[in-house]
């Protein structure tokens, strides 16, 4: 009696990362699709911010004054929303594909919050990779769009702390959007009834 009452169930962040990483690696196509989705939206964002920074830097070293059209910012927001919807969709499919496995995990002792953690960790890892790739693509895009007027060496004139700030902001946006997009699918997965889940045929 007391043994059941005192029992402990664990599933650490490290365990979740280990298992989540395995899932991402094994389902490479879907993971890459998610990463592409987030990194494309993000590269648009980064390139726009950087283009503006490059123009400002160009003006500060004696070039003519240029600016980014404000309508582009609306397009960035729309691109990021599209990324979020795409990830939510892909993660929902991922939940349905894994219904039996989720049921099995619950059968061998996983709690709802462990399943939730697993999916959010996968989203986090995808956001991390997507953020890096998105930033690099954004830098390239910004250079391509400004380089012909400002010269491609403009990037060397930009204050490094400003570059780092932009990088960290991009990465944070990527992580937040990826995790937000996965919240609903992860919640659905965690609330699955193991009896139903085990009976589920794909």
């Amino acid at each position, binding site marked *: *009696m007391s043994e059941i009452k005192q*029992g402990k*169930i664990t*599933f650490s962040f490290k365990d979740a990362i280990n298992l989540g990483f*395995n899932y991402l690696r094994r389902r490479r196509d879907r993971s890459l699709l998610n990463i592409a989705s987030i990194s494309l939206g993000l590269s648009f964002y980064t390139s726009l911010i950087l283009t503006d920074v490059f123009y400002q830097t160009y003006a500060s070293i004696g070039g003519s004054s240029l600016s980014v059209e404000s309508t582009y910012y609306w397009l960035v927001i729309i691109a990021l929303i599209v990324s979020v919807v795409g990830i939510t969709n892909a993660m929902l499919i991922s939940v349905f594909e894994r219904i039996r496995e989720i049921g099995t995990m619950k*059968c*061998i002792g996983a709690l709802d919050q462990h399943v939730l953690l697993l999916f959010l960790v996968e989203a986090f890892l995808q956001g991390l990779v997507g953020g890096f790739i998105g930033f690099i693509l954004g830098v390239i895009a910004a250079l391509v769009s400004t380089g012909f007027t400002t010269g491609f060496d403009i990037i060397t004139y930009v204050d490094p702390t400003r570059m780092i700030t932009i990088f960290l902001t991009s990465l944070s946006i990527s992580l937040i959007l990826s995790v937000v997009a996965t919240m609903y699918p992860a919640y659905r997965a965690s609330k699955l009834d193991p009896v139903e889940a085990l009976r589920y045929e794909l």
Partner: protein
Amino acid sequence: MSFEKVIELKELARYFEVGGDLVKALDGVNLDIGRGEYVSLVGPSGSGKTTLFNMIGGLDRPTQGSVYIDGVDISKLDAYELAWLRCRRIGYIFQSFNLIQVLTALENVALPTVFAGLPRDEGNDKAQKLLESVGLGERLHHKPTQLSAGQQQRVAIARALANDPAIILADEPTGNLDLKTGTEIIDLLHKLNRSKGLTLVAATHDLKMIKASDRVVMMRDGKIEKIEKGEAPLNHN
């Protein structure tokens, strides 16, 4: 012979509502299962075997009646305590193996030890020993898709044993296996039941499996129709 009750079912009933009709999946089941006993559940599909399993495993709650595991009424447990019960006291074996496809055999067997809070190294050592004991010492790092059906079921058995449970619930464990592999799995389960004193409850249609059991519980329409002694005598050492 002492008969120590591990599982006790009292007036157990589970009703479902399907399209406005009341379906009595279980309807007043009384059954005591002793420690180290090997019980086969038989009956046509829809007779309530799987529902009974879900009840014993704490996956589903009864409409009426109670399930006692080691004297504890599990309908009184919260989600956390039920998870612990499933993790530590009960091992599941399924007809379709239900291994985690992205994990290797070793990782699959070690997964329950992760939930049980065992350190990674200890869990892996244990998983390796278990896989060796079911004859898969050479296939530790294979993924389920690289294993035959019989080998996958062996991995599933090793996983069920990972946290030294007292009870093994096996739902048609030989249902997806050919005759020869099925016989090997039955022998393995029987050996574990005898050598480790595990309580084994198996739903099955497999005549060989029924013959090996201590008692055969026949179910029909959510009720126990009759209970017969199996051919293997109950023998505790």
